[in-house]
């Protein structure tokens, strides 16, 4: 016998002091044997247990239910269960986390249940931690889902509110607009009544001026509503940016003059071609000019310029006005974001104009930004619009080149609108023509006879002697037989074209003038 064999403990000793608790019970659960390890763990002597205690009595109530409902039936069916977690109750009331393996075996004629138990205190600790971590993660998921749902709801609510606001503004603008038309008519009636009462005239002028302002505001409001509701459609066409600039300059004229501002326009050296809605393009620039005029103290300067930068047209409106504080630069295009200092000014408005400009720029796939060195240092507004595709324009560029040859015509421009006449003359002179101007019919006839222009651009809506009469007069004169007469009328009045032809006009253009059409006419002279 070797030394190791000789020192080997007996099977009984091994059983009693095994590294695990060992237990044998009868079929009904009565403990038949329990080793010393088990007895020590539960704080009882073997005499207290064997033949006296049922195994479930060592379990917590929850553990007993778990045994009865879960692993005891399984033990009956498959003869063994493993890795069952139970809490054993120590004689002093403490509970001990245990893991047990159980075998049910037949010994002779009876079934016995044999169990091996190990203490799993540490294991239980990290199991609990795992569980806690899992719960925390699940809770976090639930909270996130909840937060996302809330956010979604809030967004839906906001967009609903926003939609209602848009609808409200649209309705409001419509409702406000209705009474404006009759008020306008009354102002016209007052004008028609010849009155020598200077107070009455003054009152009428104030009324007219204010009416114009409120009409603009309501129109802007309506336009914005249409943009936000996706109801505004652009009538895009290929056009020259200079035309829109001149048209805007013309319309801004009265306000600019009233404020004694100096408006400096720098037209681009070469034509800049865009695919845009001419009316809307003019409207954008006009709003920026009006804005500049409003927020620039009397006698200030306003610059309007445009240039080509890469694939973009850059339009800039700069002023020497009150400027914009850095913190307001981002919100200046939001509706009703009018800055506090502006509200104190007599011309303070609701801040609808800039929002409308941004809406229109966006519709044209462009961008708009504002810059300012700070309060009192003026503001610069910059619109960037995509240029027409160069290739698509290649053909037209060729035509343009030939247009240069037409330079040098003598042209008479007749219009009672001083701004219109100034801008149109400016444009024609830039193209190398010799231009004379007249602001009414009588002056037009005098100029025509003295200057003998090759072409006359004649506004129809002249006071006293209208454009048709002027044309007929010209045609009656010997010097007027070969002149090319071009009628200028308001937007889209088709039947006027017929009248124009009868009066002796060669061509007819509607305002705002399409410069391509005008160039074609000039080329043909």
């Amino acid at each position: 016998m070797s030394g190791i064999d000789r020192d080997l403990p007996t099977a009984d000793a091994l059983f009693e002091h095994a590294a695990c608790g060992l237990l044998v019970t009868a079929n009904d659960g009565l403990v038949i044997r329990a080793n010393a390890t088990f007895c020590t763990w539960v704080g009882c002597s073997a005499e207290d247990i064997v033949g006296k205690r049922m195994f479930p009595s060592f379990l917590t109530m929850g553990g007993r239910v778990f045994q009865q409902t879960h692993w005891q039936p399984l033990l009956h069916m498959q003869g063994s269960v493993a890795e069952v977690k139970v809490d054993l109750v120590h004689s002093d009331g403490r509970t001990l986390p245990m893991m047990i393996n159980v075998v049910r075996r037949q010994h002779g004629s009876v079934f016995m249940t044999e169990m091996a138990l190990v203490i799993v205190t540490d294991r239980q600790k990290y199991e609990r931690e795992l569980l806690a971590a899992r719960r925390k993660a699940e809770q976090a998921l639930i909270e996130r889902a909840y937060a996302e749902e809330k956010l979604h709801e809030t967004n839906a609510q906001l967009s609903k509110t926003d939609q209602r606001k848009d609808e409200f503004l649209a309705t409001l603008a419509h409702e406000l607009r209705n009474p404006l038309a009759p008020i306008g008519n009354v102002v016209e009636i007052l004008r028609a009544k010849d009155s020598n009462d200077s107070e009455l005239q003054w009152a009428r002028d104030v009324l007219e001026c204010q009416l114009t302002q409120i009409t603009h505001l309501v129109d802007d409001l309506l336009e914005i509503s249409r943009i936000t509701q996706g109801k505004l459609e652009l009538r895009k066409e290929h056009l020259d940016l200079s035309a829109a600039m001149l048209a805007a300059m013309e319309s801004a004229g009265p306000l600019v003059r009233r404020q004694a501002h100096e408006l400096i326009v720098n037209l681009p050296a070469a034509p800049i071609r865009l695919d845009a809605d001419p009316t809307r393009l003019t409207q954008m620039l006009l709003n920026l000019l009006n804005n500049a005029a409003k927020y620039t103290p009397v006698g200030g300067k306003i610059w309007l310029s445009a240039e080509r930068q890469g694939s973009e047209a850059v339009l800039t409106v700069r002023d020497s006005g009150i400027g914009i504080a850095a913190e307001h630069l981002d919100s200046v295009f939001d509706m009703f974001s009018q800055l506090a200092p502006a509200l104190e000014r007599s011309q303070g408005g609701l801040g609808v104009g800039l929002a409308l400009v941004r809406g229109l720029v966006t519709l044209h796939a462009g961008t708009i930004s504002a810059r300012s060195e700070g309060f009192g240092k003026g503001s610069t507004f910059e619109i960037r619009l995509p240029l027409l595709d160069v290739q698509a324009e290649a053909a037209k560029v060729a035509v343009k080149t030939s247009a240069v040859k037409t330079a040098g015509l003598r042209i008479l421009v007749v219009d009672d609108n001083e701004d219109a006449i100034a801008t149109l003359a400016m444009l024609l002179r830039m193209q190398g023509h010799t231009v004379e101007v007249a602001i009414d019919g009588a002056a037009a006839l005098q100029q025509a006879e003295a200057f003998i222009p090759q072409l006359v651009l004649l506004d129809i809506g002249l006071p006293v002697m209208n454009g048709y009469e002027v044309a007929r007069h010209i045609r009656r004169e010997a010097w007027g037989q070969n002149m090319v007469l071009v009628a200028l009328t308001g937007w889209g009045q088709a039947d006027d074209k017929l009248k124009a032809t009868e009066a002796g006009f060669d061509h007819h253009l509607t305002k705002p003038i399409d410069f391509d059409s005008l160039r074609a006419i000039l080329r043909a002279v």
Partner: protein
Amino acid sequence: MNLQQRNNVHLGGHGDSSIVFAHGFGCDQNMWRELLPAFAGRYKTVLFDLVGSGLSDLSAYDQAKYDTLHGYADDLLEIIDEFTTGPVIFVGHSVSAMIGLLATVKAPERFKVNLMVGPSPCYINDANYVGGFTRPDIDGLLDMLETNYLGWSSTMAPAIMGAPEQPDLGVELTNSFCRTDPDIAKHFARVTFLSDHREDLPKSTTPTLILQCSDDLIAPVSVGTYMHAVMPLSTLTVIENVGHCPHLSAPHVSIAAMEAFLQTWDR
């Protein structure tokens, strides 16, 4: 919804009428295997797993539907409609005994007799009523469930159930109750042990056997006595057995008690 798959329904046996078995909390239809041969020669047999247990379709476990035992009772009636003809003999263990009782109240015409094995209408003590448990006891059970299901997340279940037709020991779990999702197990435990259907007992007009064990922690004899007192057509039989599953630990005595009852009521 395919009922066969939802409830893992298994049909067998021969006979004119059907006998339907429903397992208790923590088990599955395998627990009927000692009893089945005694009835398969005379009846068509229908075995199934409650949704959330055994090899039922866990994805069909709708917390709202199974928030009361009525959800399970509705399933039972669907199974009876789909897989049997005429009124059936119903054998329900533990919680399924109460599920069967609720079904007999809803549709008495579908049942010939109701055999309740280890039933309890209410597990928690209430005034003079002795259910055997207090609320903290049930919390202790929930805790026990949690630690024993630890690691068996629902995401692992499909992998384990991937090869049910090939019971490979390497794949098969030692403790089959761990197949189910821990959240389902806890919810089912809560629904079962916090249920109180004492008021439904007198509403059942189906002849009923109340089969109690002499020493059952889950359903003490006092509960059987209470039930027998309030149920009009009930028979109480107490068999000598320690534990909650006489059909496993004392199958022959259980069969004898059931046969005796059937001889009186199913002739």
